[in-house]
């Protein structure tokens, strides 16, 4: 009788340990795999064909978006505030991910002010922050193919004279290896949040 009681207690403890381990591992697994700060799009949105040029004057097309993860930001070189801050943050995010051995997406600045952002201007601008950042510009209608797909807003705003600024979305798009928009980060962009979430999005260990 005493033995069977002990056996029951042992079985109960063993089951409790097994159950606890199972639930703990599940909780840990879900905590590690779900981005906390990014919005993962319910369905990846494929970017249509477009014809732009990069800051080296080379053609930049949809095929250039495939094969690696990309962080895509829309801005312009005359942007005094938001764009420089975002490019600095993205550069530091990339460096942090490389440092911890994670997949570090490439960084892409798509100009929403192609009138002033020639390849030369864009090249000097992006390389000022980081030689790894690629600037893309071109015909506004071609840029619209990218912005309309991803619900990116941009509009010129004249400041009372010939000078203008460009109102624009501040979201960072995460483009997957197939050239489809997979997720996005809304502002404010916190370096630590991106560094924490991006491996969960790209699936790197």
């Amino acid at each position, binding site marked *: 009788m005493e033995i069977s009681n002990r056996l029951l207690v042992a079985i109960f403890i063993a089951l409790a340990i097994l159950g606890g381990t199972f639930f703990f591992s599940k909780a840990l697994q879900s905590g590690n795999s779900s981005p906390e700060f990014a919005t993962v799009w319910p369905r990846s949105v494929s970017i249509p064909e477009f014809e732009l040029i990069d800051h080296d004057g080379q053609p930049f097309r949809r095929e250039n978006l495939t094969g690696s993860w990309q962080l895509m930001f829309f801005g312009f*070189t*005359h*942007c*005094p*505030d*938001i764009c*420089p*801050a975002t490019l*600095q943050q993205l*550069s*530091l995010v990339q*460096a942090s991910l490389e440092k911890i051995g994670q997949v570090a997406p490439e960084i892409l600045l798509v100009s929403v002010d192609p009138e*002033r*952002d020639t390849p030369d*201007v*864009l090249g*000097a*601008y992006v*390389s*000022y*922050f*980081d030689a790894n950042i690629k600037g893309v510009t071109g015909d506004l209608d071609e840029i619209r193919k990218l912005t309309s797909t991803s619900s990116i*807003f941009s509009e010129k*705003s004249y*400041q*009372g004279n010939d000078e203008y*600024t460009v*109102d*624009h*979305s*501040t*979201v960072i798009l995460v483009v997957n290896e197939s050239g489809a928009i997979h997720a996005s980060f*809304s*502002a*404010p962009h916190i370096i630590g949040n991106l560094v924490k979430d991006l491996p969960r999005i790209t699936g790197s260990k």
Partner: protein
Amino acid sequence: MKLSVVLFFLLCGSLIACSHEDGPSLDVKNVRILAPLPGSDVGVAYFDVVNNTDAVSHLINMSSPQYGQVAMHETTETKGIARMRPVSTVPVPANSEIKFSSGGLHVMLIDPLAELGPGSQITIQLHFEDNLLIVSTMLQPRRIRRGQ
């Protein structure tokens, strides 16, 4: 010409400093003036304006001997869209301070009158309705490179 400008600033600074025995009624702290980025000749300045008086003080204009135009702007972000607009007057509440900072109110330094770069000495005059403040500091580079 340069000597007269320096003397003018020193005189203004002295007048402001002497008019308040218990510290300045208006003050500027944490001044950062950042060099233009490649592709642009527009610099940007950030600082805190402190009003130590019991009355609101209105900042109505700014100027600089080094720039043709100094403009106050405000960046706002609504529903994920950043917009920058000029601001004509900035009220600094009594016994309070207003921050000119990245992502909010900031100062645009437009049309440099000479070639300027990191290390250049820049002076900005803050014109209030009934007061004048002068700040002067070196132009700083904007970038934060990897590892810095």
